[in-house]
């Protein structure tokens, strides 16, 4: 089964299963693969699937269609081919098409890469003006996600208990709650554990992991035994401290 992964920068945006017949790529909404970016022409390219395999054809687009950084007009697709349209890339995966059809080089017949071998996909280089994906909102107003994105940082506000600050901004990757000297959020008292919980900041958000054997980490009143995501206005209770989590713009 042949597939395309639509990527923007490092991220995979969509997975497309390719069928026999014609699959169109372009900025117009009528395209099968619709990419809303000004670097992409209205009707940019098309992929033709036949019994012999898949072929990509550029439809005289303004910025061109590239395969592995070479501009092409029409070319058969081989396994792992990286197609570039504007700032977006489409990675073509079809284990059956693993043998390249390169006339200039001696081709060594190899079995298709087995699933256990690691494959690397790298994005090609681009000019910076193509960097923007335009998001069309209601009322056909254009907003750029670059302007819309504001960095948000987690904050724990002390609601109850004795702490050395009124609130803690969670800017570091790892934040420890406990009695330990190195803990960012210090617990006081003889009975406080050295480590009560650890907060991990990731691209997906904040996660709190309780220390083993500490029965006393509560999130929204419920005991937590494994890593748990922190959401807006969650209440965290560790030792004698009661804290509220929020995401703030900085």
């Amino acid at each position, binding site marked *: 089964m042949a597939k395309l992964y639509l990527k923007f920068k490092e991220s995979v945006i969509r997975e497309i299963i390719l069928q026999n017949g014609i699959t169109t790529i372009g900025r117009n909404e009528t395209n099968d693969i619709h990419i809303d970016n000004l670097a992409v022409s209205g009707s940019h390219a098309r992929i033709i699937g036949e019994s012999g395999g898949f072929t990509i054809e550029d439809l005289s687009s303004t910025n061109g269609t590239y395969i592995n950084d070479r501009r092409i007009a029409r070319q058969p697709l081989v396994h792992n081919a990286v197609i570039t349209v504007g700032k977006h890339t489409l990675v073509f995966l079809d284990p059956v098409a693993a043998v390249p059809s390169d006339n200039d080089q001696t081709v060594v017949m190899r079995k298709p890469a087995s699933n256990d071998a690691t494959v690397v996909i790298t994005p090609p280089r681009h000019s910076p003006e193509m960097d923007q994906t335009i998001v069309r909102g209601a009322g056909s107003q254009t907003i750029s996600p670059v302007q819309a994105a504001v960095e948000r940082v987690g904050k724990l506000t002390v609601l109850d208990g004795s702490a050395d600050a009124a609130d803690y901004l969670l800017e570091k990757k790892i934040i420890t709650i406990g009695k330990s000297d*190195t803990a960012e959020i210090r617990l006081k008292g003889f009975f406080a554990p050295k480590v009560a919980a650890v907060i991990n900041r990731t691209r997906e958000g904040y996660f709190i992991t309780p220390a*083993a054997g500490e029965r006393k980490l509560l999130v929204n009143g419920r005991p937590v035994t494994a890593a748990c995501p922190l959401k807006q206005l969650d209440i965290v209770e560790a030792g004698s401290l009661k804290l509220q989590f929020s995401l703030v713009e900085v």
Partner: protein
Amino acid sequence: MNTVSSGYSDRGMVREGNEDSFVVAPELGLFAVADGVGGHRAGEIASKMALDVLQDYLGRTSGGGEVLLGGNDPNYSDTANRLASGIRLASRVIYESAQDNPAWRNMGTTIVAALLEEERLSIAHVGDSRAYLIRGGGIIPLTEDHSMIAEQVRMGLLSPEAAQASTQRNIITRALGFEVDAEVDLCDLLLAQEDRILLCSDGLTNMVSDQMICSIALGSQNPDEICQQLVEEANMNGGKDNVTAVLIMVRSGSLSLLSRMLDWARRS
């Protein structure tokens, strides 16, 4: 910081060679794991080359004041920036060596590296080799894989359960040597007593759950023993890939007996 460390690597139960490499160099404060990519032993060469270049670079620049390749990111410590610079250099060396030698075309490697300076541990990674912090008995991931599956999970396109079952976990989106310049992810961390840091290749994490890794890592005071046990566990579960584990353990201070008694008193 008083630490003990160890590393162990095995080709696993299926692969014929071992394309993983590791370095444990406490005198430099350097610990790293690299997992090579590319046929005809090129992966093995790439992972070894990455660690040799990195170790050599850090050995030469430990005085500070050197020019950083790729600039200085003010969000991270000098230690982290120095580590990133060494990794970028390694990527260039691999890239250029591959250009000169047809047998090495398309070779590359992942890397996860930790550089210890006093109490600060800086971690850098490219690809799907990982670092974990084991603190307070819990296991916390310090790295986010540069793999297609991990990206799809981050974007909410794939559930973590579906990711576990996916056959495309082998596709990575970043590696050293595939492009002239490698994009390196960094993280700075202040170590605490009794912390354990694990660096490992995907041959471990694809075979052993995080919870199991955590309990093995806490099961002994001897880092040699822990690394071997982690590798054995991966092999027992099938050992489909090369397996490598590097462990750094922070020793507790001189008050450990007293603090352990207090801990015992508190819990009972």
